[in-house]
């Protein structure tokens, strides 16, 4: 009864939405404002100006680099938030002094024997892991030419880590990511933005600027690659940390 | 002539500092008394030091702080304000002396004296407020400062009375604020320094709303019927507080606000054109008569006093609504002429209650023999309310009748006469019971109140006679009232 009421309300709610979208520029219309205004310039001059054949990467890193800085900060926020919610002295912890006086029930999940995994899965995962890693690296590094980039690669890398954790057990994987290293890695993406952005001030006079001159295109390329690596590694570390924190609770 | 002078700020500030010192050092009886008394004295001196200047027509002004053009806190000691301030600060001194005697051995004395000082501070602030905003601010502060005094005993009854008091007066304050906003929106100023800041062009609707809101806002404290509900219940407070509430600070603040509304916000000319004051005059007349009739049936001494207060306050409102110079003189002079007799009575009632524990009138038989001075002073005050010549009350009634006749509203004279009869009907029985209806065998066995109680009573009684008998009472010259009237009527 309640559900039906909600559903019928939503149908009423949908009507103004539909009316509004009907007035939007028609689907695929090449004369729509969206194609004639800013995009037009990006498509025309984007490759030279922004220095990436993949225009999406160009937009992400160059034209709207600040958005991307914000975006990596958002994932960092998610990590900080998840840790601030989940961390307890009994849960994810690495330092001796943090141990609680008496461990709570079901504590130290990392020493729990991993769920029995079928040998086939184990084998396949172990076999595939290096390939996934290489693929992730390719996606990250080649993002300005082909589809992909730091986020996608980072997510793949993070996924690889997660799969390994599931299969091998958190106890085995966690020591590979010691706390000091993890804290640097989780901040890699915003920090690389801050550094590269500051470099941009030197080149263009404004934060996050990339040298537009053709003579410096190698520098530009390098800056972008550093950013992509920062995003990728940082993203992977954050996804992995979130997963570990949730898994360990 | 306007002179920039710090004294209009100083006067309220002294009591403020005194309150602070009392809160800080008040647990020590000596310092508490010392600060209270010396502050009262210093303040009286400060206020009186402005008197000679005021009499020569000098107006002391001081802009304390201005937030934006036209909105700020500013002080201005004009004739009307000076009159009110002089009454309050004189009575504060007397009440402080009385309270020291009365509160001996009571609880929460620090709080009591601290807020007592704050109350007077705010009252003088109201007197010297240069604009509606300052007036409103002190008006609200007064509410807050008297609240702890009303609930002093912290009995459930007192707390209930306190809540009722807060609800009534805060709501009233909100009306004043709304009206201030509208006034500012209409005229661009809030100043009370001119004889009227509103003009006819602002539209009948706006003017009506402003008048209604200001009258209701101030009328709550002035206890015009039907807004009087809080006053009788607030009688649970200790007697000095009742005296302060009902004779000096709170109710007078309301009345003073109405005077400011009539004389300085609207101006008599505009009001005469608009004719708003006639309904107010009728309401006041109704209050005078009804409250007197109710007072007739009260047996509790303080309750009878309370209803008498309601009735007397409306005299001021009535006189002010008549809008003639004579009536205006009566209105202003009655601030003092009502305060002194009323405070005498409260002091007497308090002294009796303190001494004998008797709170009802019929228990008072023979008290006149035991406390002759107290009851003598009481008798003088009663005579004043009845309007016997040579007492303060007579002056008011005389001038008001003159004013009413000037305006051709003779029926207000009738109201005055009826009220006098009613006053006689409820005050004289007390005098009669006290002196003549002694139970057989009463001996003259004087147990007079202690000097700290008695001296203020007698001083007040003397003032009652002085106010009626001479024109230039020290500290409260009649000519000051006349100066205020001249300013208001542009004479």
């Amino acid at each position: 009864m309640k559900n039906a009421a909600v559903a019928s309300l939503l149908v009423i709610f949908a009507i103004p939405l539909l009316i509004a979208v009907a007035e939007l520029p028609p689907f695929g219309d090449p004369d729509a404002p969206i194609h004639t205004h800013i995009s037009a310039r990006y498509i025309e001059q984007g490759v030279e100006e922004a220095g990436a054949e993949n225009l999406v990467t160009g937009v992400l890193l160059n034209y709207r680099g600040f958005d991307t800085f914000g975006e990596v900060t958002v994932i960092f926020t998610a990590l900080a938030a998840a840790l601030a919610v989940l961390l307890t002295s009994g849960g994810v912890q690495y330092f001796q002094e943090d141990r609680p006086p008496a461990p709570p029930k079901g504590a130290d999940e990392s020493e729990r024997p991993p769920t029995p995994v079928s040998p086939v899965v184990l084998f396949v995962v172990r076999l595939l892991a290096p390939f996934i890693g290489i693929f992730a690296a390719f996606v990250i590094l080649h993002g300005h030419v082909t589809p992909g980039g730091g986020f996608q690669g980072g997510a793949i890398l993070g996924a690889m880590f997660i799969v390994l954790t599931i299969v091998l057990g958190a106890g085995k994987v966690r020591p590979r990511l010691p706390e000091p290293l993890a804290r640097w890695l989780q901040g890699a993406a915003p920090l690389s933005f801050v550094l590269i952005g500051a470099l941009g001030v030197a080149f263009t006079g404004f934060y996050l600027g990339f040298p537009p001159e053709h003579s410096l295109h190698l520098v530009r390329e390098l800056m972008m690659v550093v950013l992509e690596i920062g995003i990728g590694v940082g993203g992977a570390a954050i996804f992995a940390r979130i997963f570990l924190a949730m898994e360990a609770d | 002539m306007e002179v920039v002078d710090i004294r209009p700020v100083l006067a309220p500030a002294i009591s403020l500092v005194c309150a602070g010192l009392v809160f800080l050092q008040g647990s020590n009886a000596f310092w508490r008394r010392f600060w209270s008394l010396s502050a009262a004295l210093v303040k009286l001196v400060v206020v009186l030091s402005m008197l000679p200047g005021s009499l020569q027509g000098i107006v002391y002004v001081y802009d304390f702080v201005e937030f934006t053009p036209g909105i700020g806190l500013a002080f201005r000691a004009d004739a009307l304000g000076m009159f009110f301030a002089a009454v309050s600060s004189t009575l504060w001194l007397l009440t402080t002396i009385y309270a020291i005697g009365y509160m001996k051995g009571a609880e929460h004395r620090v709080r009591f004296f601290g807020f007592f000082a704050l109350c007077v501070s705010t009252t003088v602030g109201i007197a010297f407020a240069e604009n509606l905003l300052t007036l409103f601010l002190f008006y609200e502060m007064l509410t807050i400062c008297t609240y702890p005094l009303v609930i002093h005993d912290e009995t459930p009854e007192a707390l209930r009375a306190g809540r009722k008091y807060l609800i009534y007066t805060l709501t009233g304050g909100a009306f004043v604020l709304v009206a201030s906003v509208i006034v500012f929106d209409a005229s661009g100023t809030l100043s009370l320094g001119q004889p009227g800041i509103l003009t006819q062009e602002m539209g009948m609707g706006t003017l009506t709303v402003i008048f209604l809101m200001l009258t209701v806002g101030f009328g709550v404290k002035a206890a015009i019927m039907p807004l009087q509900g809080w006053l009788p219940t607030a009688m649970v407070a200790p007697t000095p507080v009742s005296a302060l509430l009902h004779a000096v600070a709170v109710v007078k603040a309301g009345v003073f606000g109405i005077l400011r509304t009539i004389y300085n916000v609207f101006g008599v000319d505009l009001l005469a054109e608009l004719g708003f004051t006639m309904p107010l005059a009728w309401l006041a007349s109704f209050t005078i008569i009804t409250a007197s009739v109710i007072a007739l049936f009260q047996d509790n001494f303080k309750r009878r006093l309370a209803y008498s207060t309601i009735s007397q306050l409306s005299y001021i409102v009535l006189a002010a609504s008549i809008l003639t110079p004579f009536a205006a003189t009566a209105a202003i002079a009655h601030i003092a002429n009502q305060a002194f007799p009323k405070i005498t009575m409260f002091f007497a009632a308090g002294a009796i209650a303190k001494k004998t524990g008797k709170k009802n009138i019929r228990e008072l038989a023979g008290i006149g023999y035991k406390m002759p001075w107290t009851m003598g002073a009481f008798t003088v005050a009663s005579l004043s309310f009845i309007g016997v010549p040579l007492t303060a009350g007579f002056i008011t009634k005389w001038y008001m009748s003159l004013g009413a006749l000037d305006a051709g509203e003779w029926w207000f004279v009738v109201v005055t006469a009826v009220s006098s009869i009613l006053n006689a009907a409820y005050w004289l029985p007390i005098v009669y019971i006290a002196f003549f209806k002694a139970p057989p065998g009463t001996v003259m066995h004087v147990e007079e109140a202690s000097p700290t109680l008695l001296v203020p009573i007698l001083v007040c009684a003397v003032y009652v006679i002085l106010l009626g008998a001479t024109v230039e009472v020290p500290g409260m010259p009649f000519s000051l009232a006349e100066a205020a009237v001249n300013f208001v009527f542009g004479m």
Partner: protein
Amino acid sequence: MIEWPHWMAIVVLAPLSGAVLTPIVSLRDRRIAPWFALATMTVTSVAALFLIMRVAQEGPFSYPLGAWTPPYGIELRFDEFSAAISVVCLVGSLAILCSVRYTEWLRELAKPRIPYYYALMLLNLGGMIGFMITGDLFNLFVFLEILSLSGYALVAVSGERTAEMAAFKYLLMGAISSLLVLFSVGIIFGITGSLNMVDVTTRLASVAADATMPAVLALGALTIGFMVKAAIFPVHVWLPDAHAIAPSPISAVLSGLVVKVGIIGMLRVYQIYYGSGILDLTVLNQVLLWLGAISIVMGAFFAIFQDDIKLMLAYSTISNIGYIVMGLGLSTNLSVIGGAVHVFNHALIKATLFLAAGAFIYRTGYRTLTDLRGIGRAMPLTSIALSIGAVSIVGIPPTAGFLCKWYIALGAFEADQPMFGFALIFGALFIFIYYIRMVNAFYFQEPIHKEVLRVEEAPLTMLGPILLLAALCLIMGILGRIPLTFIEPAALRMLAPLGG
């Protein structure tokens, strides 16, 4: 020095990068975290100061990121409304300072969270700063997400069961509102092809003149989205729990600053829509007026019946946001100025109140008025600060709250909506009553718990900020004209297309 353009970037980057570095620098010793955060906020405050001085001198200015001329890149744009970052810096820094002792209060189990607590605090503040100075719609959304996510987590950081439930409620509503904002950014982008606010304003008038329905939908979605963030009736339901249960320094930040994000967001929406003139906003204004009035009365009404001091303050926030929204809805010069300045003043006042209430809770462990009776004698300075805050929030001259409310009320009469002037003033009356109740309990009622009388005054890191804020409440009251004249050009510019 003032002219140096990069302050604009630093003011956002400093807190955000500081947040990333906080867990790193506190690897060895957690106790470093607050001081590092404070140092970061100091840098931010310096930058903010220069920016505000510059805007006061030369009016709005912009900073093209990546040297792209707008609208091709992202532009940071600093106008008078952006000056709200000043209170973000101030209140934020003071809240961090207060947290130094407050985090000791976290349960032992939650101690490892401390570095992330400060990181989130910095993210929250940095997100707000970014939100207030960005000139790009999508960037606005990104910063909105940073500050919202960190806000949800900060509510839950204490690890109490109720806190986590409140945080989830907050998150659920906040996520929907963010989504609505994103949706309308998408629509606006769809009909104008641009994301830069200035550019959108001009293009809405020219390119999208016939697409009014999408524009209406975008306006509605943006308004609802920001209304959730600002906690206006009827979408206020998340606020009382979240603000009451969060640790007090967080409550100060959430109640003083984060809800204002919704207001700043609405101001931006108004700037765009008034500037383009594509729609007649009378209906929206009327709706806002009513909702504002209901919020005022309802918030104040519920506050009266609360015994929990922080819950009472939370409801009073709803009421005060109602004032601001009413000021916007009236859309007269005076009311908008009053509303915009109340954004500043309310932040100061509410921070004073929450921090002082926090100090009580920290010292006594009690949080209801009944339990805290008599605390005024034990912690006199904190109580005085709280009383000053109470007087200010009611709006009694000469404290900070007065002038704004005066302006808004004046605007109501100017706009011929006297009804709302009444609602405003009688709302203030309600508020007055409950603060009287509070002061009464602190000073005059007999304590229920005798140990309340024996607690010490708040520690210095709490007392200092509290007293500073209380002093500011008074100073801002007396110097109230300065912010009013400061914000005036922005309000006039915003309303200029109305022909007023």
